[in-house]
């Protein structure tokens, strides 16, 4: 019994002494940290995607506070956070906010016929270098899921048709998928404008039809129906001018191949 008491006593005493020592040291040797840095760090997305050019969100917060960087460099922040960060930094809330951008994969071509059975590495970059990809369509998503791998927010999921889809609610617009896609079919657009052309093929309508049932065939129906004239045909592909688009969704309904999609309808597939 005595030993137990000695052990307990001595350990508690030691603990107490060291605790006091630590408390003293933390006061004595404390380094002044700008509280704004921690506040901004907390408001940033915390994905450390590096798109801003800094080594992670904490470094970016420090750069922001020291006025070495600009908030617009962060593509992953949502509007609310932007305003709050600006508040912390003492900048009028409208400045440098920018509109939040999200990515969309412009291919609905899961049904695009295969040229051959691809048995190589599961990586789009490898697949693209292989005889120009295994899909008949040169603009088709290769479906190996490299964008899913690089997405720091888990916003991209594979659909049953073999083409991934980006969940606009989770996407923070960090551009990683855009940069890595070897086919360059991932594009950014404002999160508020939910309509997009789900095809990237620049081929003539007849050629598109031969290869794929869900491609833009450049028929021009959407151009005609658009009430604000926001859609035009460029190189056999419909292009939406988002400065004019009013999200009415008429083009989505009229498209004969269902090649125009509305992201507000995309829900998590998993």
């Amino acid at each position, binding site marked *: 019994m005595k030993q137990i008491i000695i052990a307990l006593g001595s350990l508690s005493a030691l603990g107490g002494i060291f605790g006091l020592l630590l408390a003293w040291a933390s006061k004595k040797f404390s380094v002044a940290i700008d509280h704004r840095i921690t506040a901004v760090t907390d408001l940033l997305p915390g994905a450390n995607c590096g798109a801003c050019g800094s080594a992670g969100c904490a470094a970016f917060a420090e750069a922001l506070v020291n006025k070495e960087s600009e908030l617009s460099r962060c593509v992953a922040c949502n509007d609310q956070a932007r305003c709050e960060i600006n508040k912390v930094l003492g900048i009028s809330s409208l400045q440098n906010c920018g509109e939040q951008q999200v990515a969309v994969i412009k291919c609905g071509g899961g049904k695009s016929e295969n040229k051959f059975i691809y048995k190589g*590495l599961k990586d789009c970059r490898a697949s693209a270098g292989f*005889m120009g990809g295994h899909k008949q369509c040169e603009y088709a998503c290769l479906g190996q899921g490299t964008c899913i791998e690089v997405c720091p927010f888990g916003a991209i999921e594979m659909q049953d048709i073999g083409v991934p889809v980006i969940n606009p609610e989770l996407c923070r617009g960090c551009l990683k998928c855009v940069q890595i896609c070897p086919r360059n079919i991932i594009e950014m657009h404002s999160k508020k404008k939910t309509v997009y052309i789900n095809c990237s093929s620049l081929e003539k309508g007849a050629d598109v039809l031969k290869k794929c049932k869900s491609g833009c065939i450049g028929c021009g129906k959407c151009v005609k129906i658009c009430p604000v004239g926001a859609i035009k045909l460029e190189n056999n592909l419909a292009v939406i001018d988002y400065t004019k688009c009013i999200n009415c969704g008429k083009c989505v309904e009229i498209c004969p191949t269902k090649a125009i999609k509305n992201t507000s309808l995309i829900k998590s597939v998993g």
Partner: protein
Amino acid sequence: MMLSFCGGKHLSSYKQLTKDKPIKDFPLPKQVVLPLIQHIGAPAEVLVKVGDLVKTGTKIAEAKKLISSPVHSSISGTVSKIVDAPHPVLGKCKSIYIDSDGLDTFDPAIVKRNNYANLSKDELLAIIKSAGIVGLGGAAFPTCVKLNPPCPIDSFIINAVECEPYLNCDFRLMLERTEDILQGILLVKRILNVDNVFIGIEADKPQAIAVMRTAVRKLNLAIDVVSLKTKYPQGAEKQLIKAVLGREVPSGKLPFDAGVVVNNVATILSVYDAVALSKPLYERVITVTGKALKEPANLKVRIGTKFKEIIAYCHVGTKPVSKIIMGGPMMGLAQFTDDLPVIKGTSGILLLAEDEGCEFEQQPCIRCGRCVDVCPMRLLPYALSLCAQKRSFDLARAYNPFDCIECGLCTYVCPANRKIVEQIKLTKIVLK
């Protein structure tokens, strides 16, 4: 101790399938497809238009750039269309279609040249360039550029190794056209102005070695026929130079940086044909082989002949074909269709049946070190593979991915079925 390099591995060669089959002329095709890129370098520029009549050997596309090569019609007939067509290397390429008139009339320029011994170096190079000769071993680098090195060289090696399993076309050429090859070597020797000339042949082709040695002795030439250890990839340029001369081509450099020019034996022969017979490169010898074929053969075919015609000629057996490969099994390219033309770099067509394929699931690396042992470039393939798998391409840089010659040996020996070469290729794509 036989001459060789470190690493490498002896593979089962499967050469017996076509080893003793003499080269046969493939019947004239009804239509040929001639891609404008059959070489490394800029595409050739079209000289003809649809509806033009051409003869066998007529130049139909010209090389306008320095590193490029012209294309010649391989049959006589009419240009029917000039469109994008499937290409065995690039996937798709602009090609000239020629419909045969069945006559095979030769271009009047194709005449035997009697005075070729007096031609100067520049004249010879001009002939080689306009004959559209490229390396026939597979890489298809324009030969005229190769034979005009920017720095002094002292040795010339003829690559007659043919280390790829299954292929026999170079071997058959050596047996059947021995003296023409030697004449070609003399021509190239004059162009390069070198004293040391070697013919590198693997020791498992004693027939070829004997034939070449006899011919060299008969003509009393200063050519060294070197017997090399049978080991893949003995025919890779850098490994061949190491084996024959003991020199290592510096990393990232070309053979002429080590003072050497290496040429494939079939290329040498086409140089002879171009100079002595003024015959441009419009046909070549290929090996059509594989256990899926009933009658594998060595064929002399016109460039632009479609794979499917050649395959039909050799009769597919009862086994279902799962792969059509252009080239050998180690470095050849699997094709997605048989509607492809033979191009200048096609050394063989290999058909694999379903049971010969090697599609296994990748397993984790067990660090057995086989890939390290066999790597002819002395790299650490397993490390490159792991870096690529973990997508840590920056780390891979430390393991010299750009020195990899993609011989495929690491993937071949890997007991865990790892796709090492593919991963290294991906690393190269990403790091580029």
